[in-house]
């Protein structure tokens, strides 16, 4: 379990995260959404121990991530948005580095590489940006760690690769693993992320499961304009409108519309989902 209490972080005079508190439960794939510069990457680097909280604390199964204890590091994997092009074949990298993660599974690494149509015998510094990213994603998932933090994993992936990514995450993530995936490209991760966290400047606007969201908000896909909709958007295929769910009706959550609704009605949505 990840517990974040009153977390604060700033770059010089520029505060990025302020009084952030939340709990992340085990065995879930969290989608961390937010506009540019709201602190998604900062939050992920704080969670994995690459940065030290300036205020508040983070507790991951009793560990302070910044202590970077080997037993903590062996239970987590952080996939940065900027991945290194190592002068080594992918398979050799996996063989040499994988042994540091107790549960690393070479067979799984090769399987995921196959899903991605990536050649493990290729040198990583000769791979394209997308191929390199897919290699690192394969490695991250094959480590079988309890926590995986991925920063913009779908950046640089082509359209088939994004589908392969969704398939790999769904199929190869252990049941007790917690994934936190930060992204701008919500459509890439629709259907796999649940719960959804929406960060705003210095605040958490939403941290709720898809079920909770659909209980409280109704997503209407009809072409009729509805009075009192919190958000409405015309799309080439029709219209999507977000309303307060008064009648316990079920609807499919549209993450992009949800994101825009939350940003339009920050206080209302925060109040609705306050626990």
């Amino acid at each position, binding site marked *: 379990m990840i517990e974040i209490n009153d977390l604060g972080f700033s770059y010089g005079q520029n505060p990025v995260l302020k009084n952030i508190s939340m709990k992340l439960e085990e065995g879930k794939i969290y989608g961390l959404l937010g506009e540019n510069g709201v602190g998604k990457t900062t939050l992920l680097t704080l969670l994995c121990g690459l940065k030290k909280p300036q205020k508040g604390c983070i507790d991951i199964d009793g560990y302070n991530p910044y202590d970077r204890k080997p037993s903590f590091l062996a239970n987590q*994997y952080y996939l940065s948005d900027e991945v290194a092009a190592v002068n080594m074949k992918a398979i050799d990298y996996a063989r040499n580095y994988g042994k*540091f993660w107790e549960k690393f599974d070479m067979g799984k690494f090769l399987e995921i590489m196959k899903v991605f149509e990536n050649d493990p015998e290729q040198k990583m510094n000769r791979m394209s940006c997308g191929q390199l990213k897919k290699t690192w994603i394969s490695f991250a998932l094959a480590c079988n760690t309890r926590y995986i933090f991925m920063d913009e994993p779908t950046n640089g992936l082509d359209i088939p690769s994004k589908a392969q990514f969704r398939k790999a995450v769904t199929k190869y993530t252990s049941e007790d693993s917690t994934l936190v995936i930060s992204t701008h490209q919500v459509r890439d991760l629709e259907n796999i992320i649940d719960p959804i966290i929406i960060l705003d400047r210095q605040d958490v606007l939403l941290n709720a499961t898809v079920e909770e969201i659909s209980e409280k908000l109704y997503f209407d896909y009809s072409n009729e304009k509805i009075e009192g909709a919190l958000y409405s958007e015309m799309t080439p295929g029709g219209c999507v409108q977000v309303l307060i769910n008064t009648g316990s009706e079920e609807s499919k959550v549209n993450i992009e519309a949800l994101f825009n609704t939350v940003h339009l009605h920050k206080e209302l949505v925060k109040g609705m989902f306050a626990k």
Partner: protein
Amino acid sequence: MKTSETFSLSRFGEYFILDLRNCFAKVGLTTLVCGLVPLILLVMVAATNFAVGDPSVWIIENSVKDMVTAVTSIFYFLLIPISCYGLLTDKSAGSTSLMLPASHTEKYASMVINSMIILPLTFAALYFATDAALWAIFPQWYDDAVIVDIVKRTFRNSPTAVMTMLSSFFMPWMVSAVGLTGALLFKRGKGAKTFAVSAVSFILLVAVLGSIDIPSLYNKVNMHTVNVIWVVFQTVCAVLCLTYVYFRTKIIQY
């Protein structure tokens, strides 16, 4: 069995071998080229002499060899830690290493052993072996092997021999420690900046020493004391640099 959070020998062994392999992948070729500098020197001098001078009468004297050895060694000891560990301040490469499940002590020990012992020893062994081989094969063109020359000169001055040897022995450590500090202190232009700061510090040191009346000091203290002071100075420098590297790597953030 619960493994140690601070130091586990088996984990250190695995990390050390991985780190060593990475170091040789990065600087193996440079080490080879630097180690073969005596051969490169001989070929260059021979080619020049055959081209423009009398090919029968020439020799690479020890004074020239000493200068080349000093320049090559300083270049190697100062810049090799930067090539191996300079990327630790880079987000993608540095965070990959930092997030590897090994303790800070293990990573630090591996870094120090590789950049201050293994790589310098490999270079020195290769360099002196090449030098000795050239001396044995071409004695007419190549003066005494550097190592033989050092021993000869040292023991000619027998009362201070051990201390003089020690002062030479500590020098590479200090330079490597300075190189390692430069690797972590500067974000960009690590090699040039480390070299520039070292050169300026050296000039300042010479200027300070120049202001002291050395001849009268020599009358008061003997050469042995001077060597002891030099060894202490080098050790203190190396310890300070390594302390900085320890804490810098412990608290590094990306």
